[in-house]
């Protein structure tokens, strides 16, 4: 059904040749390096590969070439991705800059902002974090209170953010701030803040999976230049909504549905046979578990088919729409179900916290199961997504009046 058109054979040959010349053999299949390390790992091969991809713009293949992107068509980008996986190559450019902020800035930023920030993201030179949630503003995000006062040539920012992913190793923060306290949604602006400012303090928060992927971030008299305001003053809410669509699309779609985000590897069916045994026909011995594994695999397949259908229907370049809200719930639910199944299948071997008594896969399954619980909370919780579907797609009344998303 998918017809992306265009002759990509010539591009495939070019991409194959360039990858052969530039991808270091020492990094083959080692994508995990980029995601385990918080900052770009201090390895010559990783640095060379990151620079090569940054120069070429292929870390963000479909972004415009004039701002440092690859300028490829969606069809060419898919070919590039196929050619990369064929040889075990991986994209060293990632993070919130590429997933969420970049696409949003390309849409809403002015020329100077795009020239400054997009190229740096494309080259993986500046790391971005997201300053949205606050202690008193979670699902009700628009009630945020972090204040930005107009001081003539700059804004003075005071307040605190929470759940700022990766704040401890970020250079910049795209932040929602209150610039008018007499209005709710219409008093919010979208501001870019330098995380190296002395008025910024970051405290990592330890989560149930043991790691600290999120932080509390405090702003005390932080001076932010006027040119760091994106879009109009008090016009930040619609930019934030657009950015959240990119975030949800990324969480539900591009990463294999939540489960992939947290690295629970191995298929439940293979694990079930290994941990629980097979019957004389080679099938999972426990019929109840077999039916649940099958139901789950069907959910995953249905989700993947829906991603493909949405891509074919969008015929590229329209950006994520309201349907991304469906994808987030379906994808994160399937990812969590998978993690739960795997831990159940491993039995007491799926309860290990640390130590050499457990295999790395067993330990990763436990951490992934716990870490994955965040997927139905962040980026707009499962319940907020249901609100959005009800209101925007089904046209049901908003029970919260104007105070919800």
């Amino acid at each position, binding site marked *: *059904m*998918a*017809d992306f058109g265009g002759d990509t054979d010539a591009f495939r040959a070019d991409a194959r040749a360039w990858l052969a010349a530039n991808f270091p053999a020492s990094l083959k299949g080692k994508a995990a390096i980029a995601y385990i390390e918080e900052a770009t790992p201090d390895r010559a091969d990783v640095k060379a590969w990151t620079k090569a991809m940054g120069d070429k713009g292929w870390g963000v293949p479909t972004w415009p070439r004039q701002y440092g992107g690859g300028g490829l068509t969606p069809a060419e980008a898919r070919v590039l991705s196929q050619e990369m996986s064929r040889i075990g190559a991986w994209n060293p450019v990632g993070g919130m800059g590429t997933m969420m902020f970049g696409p949003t800035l390309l849409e809403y930023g002015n020329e100077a902002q795009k020239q400054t920030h997009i190229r740096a993201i494309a080259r993986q030179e500046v790391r971005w974090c997201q300053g949205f949630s606050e202690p008193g503003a979670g699902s009700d995000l628009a009630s945020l209170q972090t204040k930005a006062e107009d001081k003539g040539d700059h804004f003075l920012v005071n307040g605190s953010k929470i759940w700022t992913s990766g704040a401890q190793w970020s250079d910049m923060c795209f932040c929602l701030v209150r610039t008018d306290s007499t209005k709710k949604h219409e008093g919010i602006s979208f501001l870019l803040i330098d995380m190296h400012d002395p008025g910024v303090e970051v405290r990592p928060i330890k989560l149930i999976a043991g790691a600290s992927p999120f932080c509390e971030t405090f702003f005390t008299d932080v001076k932010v230049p006027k040119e760091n305001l994106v879009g109009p003053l008090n016009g930040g809410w619609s930019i934030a909504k657009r950015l959240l669509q990119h975030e949800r699309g990324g969480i539900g779609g591009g990463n294999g549905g939540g489960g992939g985000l947290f690295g629970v590897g191995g298929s439940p*069916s*293979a694990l*079930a*046979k290994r941990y629980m045994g097979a019957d004389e026909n*080679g*099938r*999972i011995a426990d019929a109840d578990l*077999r*039916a649940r*594994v*099958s*139901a789950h*695999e*069907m*959910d995953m*397949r*249905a*989700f993947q*088919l*829906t991603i*493909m*259908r949405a891509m*074919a*229907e969008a*015929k590229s370049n329209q950006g994520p729409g309201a*349907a991304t809200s*469906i994808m987030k*719930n*379906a994808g994160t639910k399937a990812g969590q179900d998978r993690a739960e199944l795997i831990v159940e299948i491993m039995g007491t071997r799926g309860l290990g916290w640390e130590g050499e008594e457990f295999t790395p896969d067993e330990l990763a399954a436990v951490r992934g199961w716990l870490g994955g619980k965040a997927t139905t909370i962040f980026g707009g919780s499962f*319940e907020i*997504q*249901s*609100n959005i*579907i*009800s209101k925007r*797609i*089904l*046209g*049901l*009344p908003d*029970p919260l009046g104007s105070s919800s998303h």
Partner: protein
Amino acid sequence: MAVLTEEQSMLRDAARTWTQEKSPVSAFRKMRDSAAPLGYDPAAFAEMAEMGWTGVIIPEEYGGSDFGYLSLGLVLEETGRTLTASPLLSTALAAASALVLGGTQAQKEAWLPKIASGELVATLAIEEGAHHAPEKTALAATKTGSGYTLSGTKTFVLEGMAAGLLVVSARTSGKAGDTDGITLFLVPADAKGVSRKQLKLADSRGAAIVGFENVALGAEAVLGEAGKGWPLLEKVLDRARAGLAAEMLGSALQAFDTTLDYLKTRVQFGQVIGAFQALQHRAAKMFTDLELARSCVEAALAAIDNDSPDVPELVSLAKAKVGDTLHLVSNEMVQMHGGIGMTDAHDAGFYLKRARAAEAAYGNQAYHRDRYARLNGY
């Protein structure tokens, strides 16, 4: 919605217009109230045939248009929306597939043009127990000289009272449960020894128990290869399942739309009940499931058209996912309508009854979950 060709869009639009104008749910109600013995209105079916819907998967040389399964699925989705009762699925998809896939030139020439024109209704006679289990075929086909003699009973034969031709699964060797030894036969419903009795089902659609008492058949009645009918039967069933899944998707979509309309109009506590979050989140869940089910149904139909090797698993996926979704939506349709949804005067009951009959046909969700696991090696 799949990316459609211009012909497919026109076919779908025609089906939508006809079902909405000529065959709304009120037409189904009228048929039900009249206790029509065939379980459908022959005049309406004649109109469907007139529009070419009975020939969509049949090659042009046998009087069809050869538009493919996705195209016929688009029509079935629309007929499913209004619960249009007709033998379209049984004859123009299931039985026609059996002949297209397994028929000799002579068999195709004898039967396909009549199916394409709508003058003949054909159907599959494959079930023997309360649950779909095609490999458990026990109906005996005994070799007699140059032909065979059939003895046994088939049940849940869809459109069995209307059928002029039965595609019957029978056992020529082995025992029930073996996939080897199954043979498909083309049996005219007026053959000596064939008897039938109407099965009055909750969904008011056509169904019958068909008895075979020493039915003598020549060798030319064998469809495909004697004793090796299983792979052909599976291919035919997969096409029937995918077509039924498309019809079920349409029923689920309409059940949801009707319910959503009610949520927006029914007032309690001074507001429309659709303003209550307890109902909104259930509606959002149904909408999400419908989107996922559509992806599966369209992928299965497209895979058949492309003769893709993953047809069996995509079909089981589609039948199970749309089955779960229709099950949920039909239950919620009654619940969210409250008391009015319990009355015979309301359409909700029709969707609920049709849902369960369609779920059971050609394998319910449990059957297809198990099959999906088997196909994937667990």
